[in-house]
């Protein structure tokens, strides 16, 4: 048993952290977030050149990583830096491609930062239920491929993507796992309309409507029998990534608070000397430590072939990220007081990101019951 990362991963983390420290301060983040696409192409290119996109995928898919620990290490640093570039969208969509069409030019383009990809899966009423897909894919009457209609909601990086991976129901009831297909569709396809917008934590997403979008037969990445499993795989990677990002954001939030505790004075002493605040900070640190442990568990089980073990751990860490992230967010703002509420100070932005992570890919309630259901078989 060993909790140390490999030398390669330590170097990767170190490199990312240094790059972010040198190039990515809060103002830079705001500037990038305010760009039309919600991120900086220049930074995205720099990240790609550092090899960060390749770290998300295995060698078989043109990358050099893709293990749970790779994803965890990288996203923890992205969380520390509050990075707005579309890594999560890349991971979600790229995971699908890596498993279904690892030699496609879109994946190569993604790793080389030339292509932006997004996974368009959630719908207005699906609320984290992976199998609830109402967007429909029908065989084109002319026999040449598919016709897809429906709407997708809160698609991360959906407004900057060149290609979308869209889930659509080929057959079955609206909540059935079987019958879901995944399609690779160019963002400029006829019938696609995309409305991008910022999210409250400074990221970007889009609402996407598909009106009889026609695609060739080879747009189908995963068919009725395998689409759901592929989705679960991609979302699983996303759960790990988001949780790691949350851990990074929690860590920085706590560090900023410790720092503030030592410098801010009230009633003639540093606020860090007030026992009530000390104890609350201690509880915050305990929960952060627990989140780290849960992340280690999930990263380690991410590669497991035992679906129950793997998905249990992924849902578990997302519960920790969601619950503890909210606790950290609320506590660090409160412990800072007014300054924590201001745009120009960092903690509020970490807090927003932490709280919004709970809204992504399933909130703590959702994953808590998923854990309960996955536990049923066990002791």
């Amino acid at each position, binding site marked *: 048993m060993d909790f140390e990362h490999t030398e390669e991963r330590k170097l990767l983390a170190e490199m990312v952290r240094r790059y972010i420290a040198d190039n990515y301060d809060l103002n830079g983040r705001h500037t990038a977030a305010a760009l039309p696409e919600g991120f900086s192409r220049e930074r995205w290119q720099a990240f790609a050149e550092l090899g960060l996109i390749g770290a998300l995928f295995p060698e078989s898919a043109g990358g050099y990583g893709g293990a749970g620990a790779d994803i965890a290490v990288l996203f923890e640093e992205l969380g520390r830096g509050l990075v707005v570039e579309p890594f999560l969208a890349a991971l979600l969509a790229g995971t699908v491609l890596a498993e279904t069409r690892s030699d496609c030019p879109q994946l190569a383009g993604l790793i080389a930062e030339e292509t932006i990809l997004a996974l368009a899966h959630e719908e207005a009423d699906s609320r984290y239920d992976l199998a609830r897909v109402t967007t429909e894919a029908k065989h084109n009457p002319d026999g040449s491929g598919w016709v897809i209609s429906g709407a997708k909601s809160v698609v991360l990086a959906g407004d900057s993507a060149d290609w979308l991976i869209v889930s659509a129901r080929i057959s079955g009831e609206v909540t059935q796992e079987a019958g879901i297909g995944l399609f690779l569709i160019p963002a400029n396809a006829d019938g696609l309309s995309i409305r991008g917008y910022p999210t*409250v934590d400074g990221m970007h997403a889009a609402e996407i409507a598909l009106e009889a979008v026609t695609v060739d037969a080879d747009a189908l990445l995963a068919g009725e029998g395998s689409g759901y499993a592929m989705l679960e795989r991609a979302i699983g990677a996303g759960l790990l990534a988001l949780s790691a990002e949350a851990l990074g954001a929690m860590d920085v939030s706590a560090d900023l608070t410790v720092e503030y505790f030592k410098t801010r004075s*009230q009633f003639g002493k540093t606020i860090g000397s007030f026992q009530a605040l000390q104890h609350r900070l201690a509880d915050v640190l305990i929960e952060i430590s627990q989140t780290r442990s849960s992340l280690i568990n999930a990263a380690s089980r991410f590669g497991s072939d035992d679906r129950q073990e793997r998905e249990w751990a992924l849902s578990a860490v997302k519960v920790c990220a969601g619950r503890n992230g909210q606790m950290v967010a609320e506590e660090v703002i409160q412990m800072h007081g*007014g300054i924590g*509420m201001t*745009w120009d100070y960092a903690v509020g932005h970490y807090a927003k990101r932490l709280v919004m992570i709970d809204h*992504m890919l399933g909130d703590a309630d959702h994953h808590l019951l998923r854990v309960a259901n996955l536990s049923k078989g066990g002791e």
Partner: protein
Amino acid sequence: MDLNYSEEENAFRAEVRAFMETSVPSDLAAKVRGGKRLSKADHESWHAILSRQGWLAPAWPVEYGGTDWDPVQRYIFEEEYVRAGAPRIVPFAVTMLAPVLIKFGTEEQKQRYLPRILDGSDWWCQGYSEPGSGSDLASLRTRAVRDGDEYIVTGQKTWTTLGHHANMIFCLVRTKQDGKPQEGISFLLIDMATPGIEVRPIITIDGEHEVNEVFFDDVRVPVANRVGEENKGWTYAKYLLGHERTGIAGIAFATQALSNLKSVARRQMKGGRPLIEDPLFASRIAMTEIELDALRTTSMRAIVAARDGNSPGIEASMLKVKGTLIRQEISNLARKALGPMAMPYVTEALDPGSNVEAVGPEGANAVSSQYFNLRKMSIYGGSNEIQRNLIAKSLGL
């Protein structure tokens, strides 16, 4: 023990409701209900409507333009005007400064300022907090040095809510450097047009401009603008804070917010059924409902105690803490209720004039930003930590 409203109280409610139904402009109510931004003019026009009716400042003595309503009536009034979608009465003049003026001001000050509050001539803001003195208010350092009939004020205030709309500010300033910090503070009324005052916006994490920094550089203030005695300002400040604390609980607003939450939870779907039928979510809503139902009575107990001449004391602190926590919890649940739809934030859509459309269900756009905005409730008005200190102190600990 009788918790029921009397017949007179029910009749009073009907009267207030009838007035509100005809008097709250529908476009204003729509803005309030949609969580849109309100302009200075929006506030002023609503104040004017209430003022014409004689209801802008119900708690003031009748002689100054208030009403003779008892606390229960005032609560009914508040409930009804929130229910009608009216915006909150801007509190700085009506419920914060005025009680201080009425109790400690000179007759001249009362005659000058109270009517100007009622007719909308003055918009007041509060100059209490400073960058170095948050919870430790008494450590404030803005100095006022006497120079003949004037004070010369230098320093900085912060968290000045809606200070960019104000033409007047009431300030705590230091008029004595030595001795206990509490014993060298005076309470000044300052015209913001006086040379040397600069207001700078503070943007909060929701991206909004609501609060400000106010800088004073050798600002000359007539000694006649001091309320009460020199160096006794701390007494007046505490009096004001006590008033602020009971008001902050904002039961009527919480009731409205809870009702909104429930309608969101009825519309949002989870697993093909309304979210409000989900046992976990339903139990959270129910818990909040129970707590608010209790808080309403906690608040009434404090109000009735005040009516009967008892000081609210520890109850005011309890109300502040619990009231803000419940309000925050409602906004927390509203955010959670929306699921992924809590994420989109199209700020332009909050501007009344804008034709940019929001994303997601009706009213969803402002929900998350409001959740973050309301984090302030447990910080301002004497942070919840300060209230807990006060509660402990009142026990002799």
